[in-house]
């Protein structure tokens, strides 16, 4: 098991390298030049640097392979470079923003699952009843509503109706957990909505599939009450594909976080990325993507490992 994890972690390295090259190159292909932007922004300042000076100072005069190798060399020493604009270390910025997005994603995942799983199970057990139909309609609704729209509605209407609006001054969890959770719960719900819709449908489908199996009939024949047949005998088997689905959805969650963070003004990686792309702040953009890529790969690994726990037929050697 440990050997398996180590092997999987080592296998991440080439993938990450590949991701870094793609990101490094594509970021520089975004139309619009950071130098132009800087020059126009600095129009009014007294000592206007020349174009050449700027290019040289930012190291953008070098050929791209050289830039990449330098950057990579830095990363291997824990140096992700500096922001082109603020000249703060990228790593500091990432470390500052990462926990915020992590919390948002985790909360969204939790609320998504807490809503989806019980409804999905209920829906399957009470197949084709009014409750099932209501649950299915609800999930279709959630699926078809884009999160930017839902997020906007949630920020606009309550403020019109009740004068309530989401807090914009972000409080870190470590400073005031209660206040922080109060702020995060609505964005997390909005972000988790789509996830919970697909999870709900998947849970229902898989439960229906499992409930038709012979071993469920065996469980009934033992005299177990319905509660135990469902929770002890069916759920575990139904969870395997659900976990896969949730793992596959996790990257989408990160993508959704970019939008949600902007709507609710949450200073996470999403907001950072958005600003950085707008300003063509290459080192920040590459840094964010690298971290996101790593996160996605780690989530996949976690999903694979969870199979071993849920399904005894899967053994990691």
């Amino acid at each position, binding site marked *: 098991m440990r050997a398996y994890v180590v092997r999987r972690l080592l296998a991440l390295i080439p993938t990450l390298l590949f991701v870094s090259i793609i990101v490094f190159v594509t970021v520089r292909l975004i139309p619009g030049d950071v130098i132009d932007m800087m020059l126009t922004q600095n129009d009014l300042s007294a000592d206007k640097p020349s174009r050449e000076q700027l290019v040289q100072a930012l190291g953008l005069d070098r050929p791209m392979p050289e830039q990449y190798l330098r950057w990579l060399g830095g990363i291997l020493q824990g140096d992700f470079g500096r922001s082109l604009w603020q000249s703060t270390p990228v790593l500091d910025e990432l470390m500052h923003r990462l926990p915020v997005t992590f919390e948002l994603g985790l909360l969204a995942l939790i609320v998504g699952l807490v809503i989806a799983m019980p409804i999905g199970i209920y829906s399957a057990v009470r197949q084709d009843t009014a409750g099932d139909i209501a649950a299915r309609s609800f999930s279709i609704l959630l699926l078809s509503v884009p999160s930017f729209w839902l997020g906007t509605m949630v920020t606009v209407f309550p403020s019109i109706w009740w004068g309530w609006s989401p807090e914009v001054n972000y409080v870190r969890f470590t400073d005031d957990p209660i206040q922080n959770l109060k702020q995060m719960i609505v964005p997390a719900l909005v972000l988790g909505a789509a996830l919970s819709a697909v999870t709900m449908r998947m849970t229902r489908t898989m439960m229906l599939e499992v409930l038709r199996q012979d*071993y469920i*009939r*065996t*469980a009934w024949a*033992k005299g177990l009450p319905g509660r135990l047949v469902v929770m002890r005998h069916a759920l575990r*088997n139904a969870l395997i594909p659900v976990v896969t689905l949730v793992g596959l959805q996790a990257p989408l969650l990160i993508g959704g976080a970019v939008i949600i963070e902007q709507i609710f003004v949450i200073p996470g990686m999403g907001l950072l990325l958005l600003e950085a792309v707008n300003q063509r702040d290459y080192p920040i953009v590459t840094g964010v993507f690298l971290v996101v890529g790593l996160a996605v790969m780690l989530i996949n690994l976690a999903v694979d490992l969870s199979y071993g726990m849920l*399904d*005894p*037929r899967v053994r990691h050697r």
Partner: protein
Amino acid sequence: MNAPVKPELSGTDEARGGAPLLSVRDLVTRFRTDRGAVTAVDHVSFDVRAGETLAIVGESGSGKSVTALSILRLIPDPPGSIESGQILFDGQDLLGLSEAEIRAVRGNRIAMIFQEPMSSLNPALTVGMQVGEPIHQHRGAPWAKVLRQARDLLGRVRMSDPDARVGAYPHQFSGGMRQRAMIAMALACDPQLIIADEPTTALDVTVQAQILDLLQDLAKRANSALILITHDLGVVARYADRVVVMYAGRVVETAPARELYARPRHPYTRGLMASVPRLDGDTAKRLVPIEGQPPDLSALPPGCAFAPRCQEATETCRLSRPPLRAVGTRHQVACTLEN
């Protein structure tokens, strides 16, 4: 007329053991399908006495499994439902029990073994836990004790190294071992009745006899009655005390096993006998499968359901449905030709 009515003693059975352990009376189980309602079990009646082995025989689709599932009220509803009849078990009508009451019977006083050992065990739970689960459920024993008893049960079904098997998962077992585990599970609460629905059909021929010998041996020792469902009359000869032959959801013949072998009265029973190798070894005889297809339950003829495949069928057979009639002590047959 106030004097208590004495039950009439008829034949040797009542004298032997009083009322039967299980008495199925006029059981009707229907399924609603796209092609209309199908009567899978049609006025089926039979008795099982304590400690006895009753075989239910018939081609696939004749309603054997549905009969078995009906006894424990395990018919999936929808699409199925038990329409009428009585299932008297130890004097109690199982069809009149509440949901909680029938649960207390399942796996406890009546246990069931299914046809598909590969899929009848839960792949995500250990064998020991599944084998011992009825004890936990019905006796309220703590899990640690349950697992010790599960180990003993696995030993009783002669599984090698039961200590290691308790914590193993079904996928680590062969088909024969899984069926042994199913038998262990059935024995867990010392049931008065075990229903085994084609327990060896899915198994290798070499282990079939082993499993059946084991099942019968353990049932005898526990003094449990056994309903052995099979489509193999060879099995019947070796294990059954009495036989019920089913065709198209109905009982067409019932008799003590010896009697049935000596004097099969229904053409279908004779057809079944001709189509299996006899254990008494007359290999020179050629095996003759019954001609024609098993009937379509949604379009049964008005007369005898077997008439379209029966070599001896007459006009009467095709027009009216023959009821079960006694043709000897405890021998009944539903055939116009046996009048």
